[in-house]
């Protein structure tokens, strides 16, 4: 059940691959040391395979189960005067950033994101807990479109 503040758009499917790839990297970060420990200390471990088994389960969760869930809970809407960003699977957060409160805007693209054809829009506000509101997983064109629209609004307000 979602809050119906505004109808939200889903992220690009490319972002799902970005999340999967990040999950896979984290899973490897768990699996490799676990495997190394299992092999190196094979004689001294009381039960074999527990460490590797737990790491494998966590890895499957991180790389395969969690990414689609997290991706599904992302959503955004740009109304012209506000940017809505919703995310979170366990704790759901819907943040509304009024365009006139935006201090400056970045469009960022990491190597993974570039590979899957998505970009990240970062809105900086003067706030404290939400100094940076990030909207990942939109196309570069969309990100630049929103950025230009916001820039036009801030420019005309100033």
């Amino acid at each position, binding site marked *: 059940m979602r*809050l119906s*503040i505004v109808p939200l758009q889903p992220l690009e499917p490319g972002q799902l691959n970005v999340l999967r790839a990040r999950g896979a990297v984290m899973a490897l970060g768990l699996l490799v040391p676990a495997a190394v420990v299992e092999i190196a200390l094979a004689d001294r471990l009381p039960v074999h395979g527990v460490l590797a088994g737990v790491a494998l389960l966590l890895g499957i969760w991180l790389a395969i189960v969690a990414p689609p869930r997290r991706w599904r809970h992302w959503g955004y809407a740009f109304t012209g005067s506000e940017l809505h960003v919703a995310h979170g699977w366990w704790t759901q957060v819907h943040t*509304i950033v009024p365009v006139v409160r935006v201090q400056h805007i970045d469009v960022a693209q990491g190597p993974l994101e570039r590979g899957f054809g998505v970009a990240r829009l970062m809105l900086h506000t003067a706030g*404290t807990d*939400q100094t940076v509101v990030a909207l990942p997983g939109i196309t570069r064109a969309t990100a630049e479109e929103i950025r230009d629209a916001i820039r036009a609004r801030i420019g005309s307000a100033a």
Partner: protein
Amino acid sequence: MNDEAPRRVHPGTVVIGLVKSAPSTLFALPAMLAFGGELGIGLVLLLTLAGVAALTFFAWLSWWQLRYRLTADAFLIESGVLHRSRRSIPLERVQDVSIEQKPLARLLGLALVRIETGGGDKDEATLDSVTLAEARRLRLALRRGPAVAAGEAGAAPESAADAGRALFAMPLARVLLYGLFNFSLVWLAAIFALLQTVDDVLKFDWQALIGIAGREVRSHLTVTAGLSVLAVALVLGVAAGLLRTLAREYGFRLDAREGRFRRVRGLLTRSEVVIVRARVQLALIRRGAISGRLGWRSLDFQTLGGSDDRSGRQEMAPFAREAEIERVIDAAGLPRFEADALIPVSRGHIVRAALRHGLPVVLAFAIGGAFLPWLWLGLALVPIPVGVALLQRRRHRYGLRDTSVQVTRGVLSQREWIVPYDAIQTVSVRRSWLQRRLGLATVAIDTAGARGFHRPDIADVAAPIAAELAPALLARALA
């Protein structure tokens, strides 16, 4: 012609810096002495002297390299030995100038000058330290433009011209009364922690001493002895609270002049802080568990760039009556708090509060009871957190008033926020797993310059209401 020659801060600064660094130097001494056995006492003394000389030289060097200059349209500060930095503050950006006197600086008649600019908190310029007269001259010059800088204004007429309308002041009796409510056992803990540290340095055998004390206590333990220990702890706690409050709040005085407040306070460290009205983001009124029942409140302003005060907000009136608080709020151009006009959050808040406060109690005693069966008795305490939870909903209220959103929260100690709509930066609606099951949501209001705890969040309103509340808040914020 307005440009003046570059000046340096007072040479006494070097002395203060050395004295301040002395404790850490002294802590190195035992280590040196420990090596002394191998190196010989003469060499140790020589090394120590060399160290002090080096410290002195570097302190002097950084003093020598720090220069400031007032030009026709800017204030320049150059500093740094290897990495030179040059900061230029356009005079039109100077909001105000604060002066602070720490105990050592007061002995030498010096003061720290902090130049407040309209921008963020990090890059505010400070001059540590100049003479009080120079500090006042700078304040006058920086605030009223360069023309005044030429004439060396005396301290007396300046301070007379400066005194604005007195808004709130705490006479000694009030400060002492406030100190009584600041009773704290934390300071006793701090003293013991200090003993512990000293213990490490002195290699003092506390364990043995406590062992002896423990045996003594056990052999003489009576109810009277126990009570007198408690009484001593209480007296120390009260005394610690009184002294600390006296040191911080002595001579508290808040003045208002066009567009700014000036707060002076402190017994040993005398601080003079300027709070620019335009930078005030929200007001927070707090009532203590006991003092609040007796009609005392405190008022904090959250400002852009935060504050050095303990709470991270500017303490405008730490211990005041309702009417005095309202006078300060009026002077800041903020609306008054309208307790009667606010509505409570959803009933679901009771469930969540009961779970949050009751569950740890239940778990702790249930698990404890598995090992020590008499701990099961602790489960009888569960009605207390549940009762508090019932009150929590009655005390957590909010309302969208004419020019501000107002939120109140807290059962024992209460908090009241006045957040002008202009100050709202972003609004978030948060729903945890439990909140979704209960059909609730938390509306979080983000403002600039918040520090530490206590945010004006509206926790646990019904989800459909939250979905209307968030856009409604922003609509007013942008109106």
